[in-house]
């Protein structure tokens, strides 16, 4: 397969699978939702079509059967059931894995055919059609149209939609305890029963009494699904068929739009002829008939109805004018008369055109715009320098720089907008997770999502995906109590998990809240003590808020993993570090017996970041603005040593003072006044001593590459206006290794 074709296939299949998963969840909630069945059917149908283009038989075969079953649900012949949903989910999961394999290796995994066969076998359990295409498929149901009167229990039922059942029991069925007559008498909705020898019976003398020689023909008034479900146990001996109660209406051939327009245009000319009502009635009638036929062939039902009313009321020249107007409007847009949804959908899609662009291309563009912004800064720098040479030149340069700044800013905004995606793309996966976990953990939970339309940078959203899954798992496994426990506590037996997303102060906020048992602080402290994360003294001193933060400690999560179900580690430390690496923060609020709420705050964009710059030994370093609390100067003499750590007083509390040059292992000059940047870290506020503060900058941070990748002290680098490189400090890592006593 050509690479671009694979990409297209992967992209479209991903969309279809996601749509199928959504629709199936919906259908599981509301088993009679015709829209959800349709969506699921269409998604699998598209998937099948795409797979067929690439001859991916494993996908084609399994989606084909799934489609068949869904078709019976669409027709109301059976309902979606939880076991069937499980199998279809399993189909979706396997196809997702196969599509991933195709993207990676360009082909299906080796076991795809076997897995596909297994899935098909599981699906067949739910296939009504398979009942018909089984060993008894060749069964002739001609008898069903001529059931003699004596076979009917209630002859009045013969006008109802009926299901015909032909049962040819195994000859040895008596030995397995079957009593075919009884089986037929118990058939749901039985209304007629006939018994025949399947072949001319032997003479009485030679009759084998323990061999079943009979076959049974029955009619039922019950729905096919129910009859088929009853017969499933005797699947290879019974054939079931729905009898047609009416001859389907022959659908007229559909005209193409051009022919339709030609016909309508000709009729319009006739309608414009003079004296139609007075002397040319026959021509008028012919035209009216032609219009009616054309509308019928085009299946324009709404227009047909409208036309029928007009046709009955043509008595005046004004009526003809209205009719001409009606025909003209149809010439312009044949769908014009079609009311409701169809028109709505057209309107929705006709206005905008969309292009699908690979994300990496947008990133490339954004990077270039970022570079351009840096070059623009360079120009400003140059303009300031030029002032020493010529004030006039400097002013002109500044003028140009301002223009370029304006343009690049606009470009940056637009390019960042390209990457803005709604959170619904990741929220979509969550209902499925809750459903699966509900089953796995035997907890009842209802997930509600608010603000799925909230947008953020694609990278931010991608970063969020895993932490969100972790948090949901955490809520399901540890928050939501089993139903009986909830009922005993006076709560609703079904737990509630609410996810809310919104923008606040140019940040993306996501709250994950459950109404579960909450986190008992003492238990957290005990566990942290047992795992050696805190000492007894520290645990005693710790406030409840601080104690809750312990659940984000890697040592804490490690212990949790051992007891977590299905080997799924909760790993809240991973959640915290992922969020913080993306420049975000996570906070927790929990109340025993009431529930727990995690709040994530992330930057809306990762592209441009606000940095505070500081100087150490003539080198410039960047500190992400969201970590900066305050910059201040403190006299050397106010620094106190507690054990081995230097401290100082900040707003009535004692903060540890860390010297950046020591952390970075750079020699530093001693000064009387120390420049201290108060920064907010995991453990709380810390004072960071630097040589001097510099200006805040807005920069595009690039991850470190090459051998620098392994340096954990820096989270990335950015190009500054003067062309120098700013290294962005990873303060958590830097301070982590430095034990504060």
């Amino acid at each position: 397969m050509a690479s671009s074709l694979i990409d297209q296939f992967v992209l479209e299949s991903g969309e279809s699978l996601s749509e199928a998963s959504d629709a199936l969840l919906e259908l599981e909630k509301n088993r009679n939702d015709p829209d959800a069945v349709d969506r699921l059917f269409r998604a699998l149908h598209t998937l099948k079509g795409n797979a067929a283009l690439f001859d991916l038989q494993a996908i084609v075969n399994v989606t084909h059967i799934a489609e068949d079953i869904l078709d019976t649900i669409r027709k109301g012949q059976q309902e979606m059931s939880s076991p069937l949903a499980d199998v279809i989910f399993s189909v979706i999961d396997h196809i997702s894995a196969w599509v991933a394999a195709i993207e990676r290796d360009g082909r299906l995994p080796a076991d795809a055919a076997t897995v596909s066969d297994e899935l098909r076998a599981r699906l067949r359990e739910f296939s009504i059609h398979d009942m018909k295409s089984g060993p008894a498929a060749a069964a002739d149901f001609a008898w069903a149209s001529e059931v003699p009167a004596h076979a009917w229990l209630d002859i009045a039922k013969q006008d109802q939609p009926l299901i015909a059942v032909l049962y040819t029991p195994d000859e040895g069925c008596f030995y397995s305890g079957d009593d075919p007559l009884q089986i037929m008498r118990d058939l749901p909705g039985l209304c007629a029963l006939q018994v025949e020898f399947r072949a001319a019976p032997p003479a009485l003398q030679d009759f084998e009494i323990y061999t079943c020689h009979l076959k049974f023909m029955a009619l039922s008034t019950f729905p096919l699904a129910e009859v088929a479900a009853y017969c499933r146990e005797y699947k290879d001996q019974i054939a079931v068929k729905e009898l047609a109660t009416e001859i389907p209406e022959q659908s007229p051939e559909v005209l193409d739009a051009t022919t339709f327009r030609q016909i309508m245009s000709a009729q319009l000319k006739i309608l414009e002829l003079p004296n139609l009502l007075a002397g040319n009635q026959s021509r008028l009638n012919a035209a009216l008939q032609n219009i009616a036929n054309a509308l019928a062939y085009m299946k324009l039902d709404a227009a047909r109805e409208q036309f029928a009313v007009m046709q009955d009321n043509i008595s005046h020249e004004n009526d003809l004018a209205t009719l001409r107007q009606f025909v003209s409007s149809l010439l312009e847009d044949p769908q014009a008369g079609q009311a409701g949804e169809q028109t709505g959908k057209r309107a929705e899609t006709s206005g905008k055109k969309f292009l699908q662009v690979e994300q990496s291309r947008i990133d490339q563009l954004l990077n270039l715009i970022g570079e351009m912004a840096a070059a623009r800064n360079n120009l400003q720098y140059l303009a300031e320098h030029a002032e020493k040479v010529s004030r006039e030149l400097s002013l002109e340069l500044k003028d140009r720089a301002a223009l370029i700044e304006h343009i690049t800013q606009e470009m940056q905004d637009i390019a960042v907008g390209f990457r803005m995606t709604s959170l619904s793309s990741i929220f979509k996966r969550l209902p499925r997770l809750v459903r699966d976990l509900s089953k796995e953990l035997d907890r009842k939970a209802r997930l509600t999502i608010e603000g799925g339309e909230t947008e953020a940078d694609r990278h931010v959203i991608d970063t969020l995906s895993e932490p969100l899954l972790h948090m949901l798992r955490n809520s399901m496994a540890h928050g939501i109590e089993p139903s009986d426990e909830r009922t005993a506590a006076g709560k609703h037996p079904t737990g509630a998990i609410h996810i809310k997303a919104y923008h606040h102060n140019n940040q993306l906020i996501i709250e994950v809240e459950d109404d579960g048992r909450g986190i008992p602080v003492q238990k957290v402290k005990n566990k942290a003590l047992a795992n050696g994360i805190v000492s007894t003294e520290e645990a005693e001193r710790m406030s409840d808020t601080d104690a809750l933060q312990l659940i984000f400690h890697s040592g804490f999560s490690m212990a949790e993993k051992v007891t977590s179900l299905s080997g799924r580690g909760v790993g809240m430390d991973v959640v915290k570090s992922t969020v913080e690496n993306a420049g975000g923060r996570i906070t927790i609020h929990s109340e025993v017996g009431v529930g727990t709420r995690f709040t994530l705050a992330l930057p809306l964009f990762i592209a441009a970041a606000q940095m505070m710059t500081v100087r150490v030994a003539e080198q410039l370093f960047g500190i992400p603005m969201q970590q900066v609390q305050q910059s201040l100067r403190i006299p050397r003499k106010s620094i106190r040593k507690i054990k081995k750590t230097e401290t100082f007083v900040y707003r009535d509390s004692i903060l540890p003072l860390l010297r950046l040059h020591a952390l970075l292992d750079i020699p530093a000059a001693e000064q009387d006044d120390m420049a201290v940047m108060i920064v907010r870290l995991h453990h709380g506020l810390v004072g960071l001593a630097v040589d001097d503060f510099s200006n805040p900058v807005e920069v595009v941070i690039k991850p470190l590459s090459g051998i620098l990748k392994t340096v954990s002290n820096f989270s990335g680098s950015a190009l500054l206006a003067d062309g120098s490189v700013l290294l962005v400090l990873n303060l958590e890592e830097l301070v982590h290794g430095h034990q504060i006593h």
Partner: protein
Amino acid sequence: MAIKYTDEVAVFEGKCTLHEAEPLHAWLKKTPQGKIDLSGCQYLHTAVLQVILVARPAVAAAPADAWLNACLANDSG
């Protein structure tokens, strides 16, 4: 036994299970003119039914059960 045999009539009473098929078969072979009285029959196993259908004895009294009637009528012609 749910079937009581007289010289001429086999009287079915209550539930006639699989085990009735063999004695009925033997009786019908021995008594070609024998009649059956199904009026008290509440249940008939398929094996018994097919013995009746193959032997087609005269029915002295029809079963009260409508379905059984339908079955016996079906293949009688």
